[in-house]
């Protein structure tokens, strides 16, 4: 179990020490905490594996005890005494509220009564929060093939909103997606509603550098919070389209209690924290 050695500052590749204040934390830890802060008590959380699971679990233990975590596989409200390695891990079926299947799980994602928030990742994202997790290159003759949608397109289509985890970089924040897997705000403005969606859309993008949100009218991505020690210029350099950085504040770093819960209770084996 490796100890965290770098602060959030400096981006994905660099480990430049930029934050003076203790406690020390990794970008991944900052991402989990930052995303968890979007979760409100009572939210019904559609979680994948990875950082999303950490964010949801930390939030539930800290400020959203009545939040419910569920998985597209049908595991509804498991205790998660150990972290799952996949959404079909037997740990998502242990001591849960109930065990169901895919059809039922997606009916919860879509349920009009519930405030369902999904956590998603992708290979590419554009300025309207549309995402690609299918191919790089030509769809019929791809240079790189990824996993495909899984439930991402469904959560992007049906949930009340979704939060994206990304590593920052110009290959990932692109002007034009090679394939649109998951609907964000589509072409911005009211286009999502006109396409036939009743609700939903991306709420925020949480990266190793910053938190991005979407303008309420144009639905274009803008820089909302940069992590301490990360400059707006650095973020823009790692983003493949122009970014409004005028509204950016500095993100509150994780406090000691958040880090303790994350490290000691949620992922003691550092399966996801690394």
């Amino acid at each position: 179990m490796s100890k965290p050695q770098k602060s959030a500052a400096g981006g994905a590749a660099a480990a430049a020490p930029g934050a003076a204040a203790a406690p020390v934390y990794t970008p991944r830890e900052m991402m989990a905490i930052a995303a968890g802060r979007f979760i409100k008590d009572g939210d019904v959380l559609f979680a994948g594996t990875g950082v999303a699971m950490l964010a949801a679990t930390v939030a539930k233990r800290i400020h959203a005890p009545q939040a419910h975590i569920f998985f597209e596989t049908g595991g509804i409200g498991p205790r998660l005494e150990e972290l799952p390695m996949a959404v079909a891990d037997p740990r998502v079926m242990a001591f849960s509220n109930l065990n169901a299947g895919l059809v039922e799980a997606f009916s919860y994602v879509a349920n009009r009564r519930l405030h369902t928030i999904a956590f998603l990742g992708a290979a590419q994202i554009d300025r309207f929060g549309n995402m690609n997790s299918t191919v790089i290159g030509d769809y019929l003759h791809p240079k790189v093939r990824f996993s495909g949608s899984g439930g991402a397109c469904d959560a992007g289509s049906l949930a009340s909103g979704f939060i994206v985890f990304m590593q920052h970089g110009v290959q990932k924040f692109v002007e034009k997606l090679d394939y649109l897997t998951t609907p964000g705000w589509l072409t911005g403005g009211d286009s999502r509603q006109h396409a036939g969606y009743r609700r939903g859309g991306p709420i925020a993008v949480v990266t190793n550098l910053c938190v991005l949100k979407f303008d309420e009218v144009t639905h274009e991505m803008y820089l909302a919070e940069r992590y301490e020690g990360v400059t707006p210029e650095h973020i823009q350099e790692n983003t493949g389209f122009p970014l409004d950085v005028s509204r950016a504040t500095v993100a509150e770093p994780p406090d000691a209690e958040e880090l303790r819960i994350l490290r000691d209770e949620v992922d003691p084996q550092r399966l996801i924290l690394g």
Partner: protein
Amino acid sequence: MAEHNGLDGKLMSIGEAVERFVADGSQICVGGFTINRNPMAAVYEIARRRIKDLHLVAHSNGQALDLLVGAGCVRRLDIAYGGNGRFAPTCIRFRKAVERGEVLVEDYTNNMMSLRFLAGALGVPFIPSKSGLGTDVVERSGFPPELRGEKGIPCEKVIVIDDPFGHADDEVVLLPALTPDVSIIHAQQVSTDGTVRIKGLTFADLEQCKASGAVIVTCEEIVPEDYLRLDPDQNALPPFLVDAVVVAPYGAHPTAVRYFYDYDPVHLNHYKAVAKDDEQWAAYLEEWVYGVESWDAYLDKIGGAQLAHIRANTVAGYAPGLDRR
């Protein structure tokens, strides 16, 4: 009602089941999801028999998918997700096969695929969805037009219509039903009259089986009919939907089976390592597929100690504290 052995004619070896129900070119689907309850004994048998040109229709059947694709059994693929959770964000042999043009892929989503199975199960030709409007999942097809109209391939990937009960901006995606030739699932228990019990998540196994023309169930154990009849709420499939029953202990290895065993991180990590390299992958197939005579021989190769490590705790249903890195 007299007791009768409802397994007469259904109980068979995995070889016999595959021989009878899976042929070159079959449209098949497998149960489970990524690293859970994949019918791996059947999958290894299909690979061993070098069955080819399969049309695999899948949501996220990670491990089974990757082995079938990696062994060259699959020509066409309707799929939502070719990954294996933290063990393989994208399934490795799947990725290579697609990039090399060795398989044709039609991309759907997990909700779409499970609904397509549901439509097949309900006996209706399509089912609506609000997923994917304005995305390439709906706009683009991976199957060439000349395949349209062939058996098991709908005339359109999806059809977007205005909701006839609705107003403006009420577009709906119609998804074509799936009715595969055969479903293969792995269950914890089958009773002596052919009833199937699955513990834990059922994924889309039940919809798949109801939609299919034939059903093979591999299972950890056979139990008395009276035992499963004591709590019928827990049973998953009736005898009349099951064509072949195969006893295959650890039959989902290296994927997990709730209350029996966890996934096997050692084998999954080994798989991940060798899958990245074509030569090592060929050697894996020789060693673990073609060179293995039976499922018992496979389990001997895994070894008793490792099976002991992954054995599920009676209460938790998985192996607490298992080193999963």
